[in-house]
């Protein structure tokens, strides 16, 4: 579901725009950057925020 939400947000953006997604460790953090790359989006950075929360920065 996290990627579903990410994908919907990405669809609202223009090419070159940046989307920041906050994710929990585990499945979402494995799956969102992988699928974004598979679909031709540019994963710029994955940063640790706090606790089990991470931030993924994706460029359309």
């Amino acid at each position, binding site marked *: *579901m996290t*990627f*579903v*939400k*990410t*994908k*919907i947000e990405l*669809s609202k953006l223009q090419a070159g725009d940046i989307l920041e997604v906050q994710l929990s460790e585990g499945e979402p953090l494995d799956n969102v950057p992988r*699928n974004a790359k*598979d*679909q031709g989006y540019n994963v710029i950075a994955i940063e640790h925020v706090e606790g089990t929360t991470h931030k993924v920065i994706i460029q359309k």
Partner: protein
Amino acid sequence: MAETKKLSIIAFSGDFDKLTAVFTLATGAAAVGYEVNIFFTFWGLDAIKRKQGRSFTGGNWLTKLFGFMMGGLKVTPTSRFNFLGAGPQIFRYLMRKNNVATLEELVEAAKLLGINLYACEMAIHVLGLKKEDFIPEVKDVLGVASFLNLSEGGQTLFI
């Protein structure tokens, strides 16, 4: 990607939990690039009715009564733990609390992702319904032969 992958789901059940499974699979697959078709038949049609509550939608008194008893998305029962209709509300509460998408959010996501929604021709005929009784996102009213055509070459699930 070489060719588009495809998932086709026959949504037969009108249960809250099974419809949640339908839409979770469908949106997940669509988000990773699958072409997704959902063919709603019989009880499953409740998910795509324009009127999400209970209403006397139908052709004659009998189908109107069925229409009222079946209702729409907002009044779907759970297959277990329904507790006279309290069950779905409890699950909605648990889903929101755990930041999991509710059935309504999944249906909205399905629309945004361009998932192809179809209604079964025979079932809507039996239940006295018309294409206008369904949400405008429903692409077409189809029979088995057309659904088989659409689903050919992909994976098919019956839920």
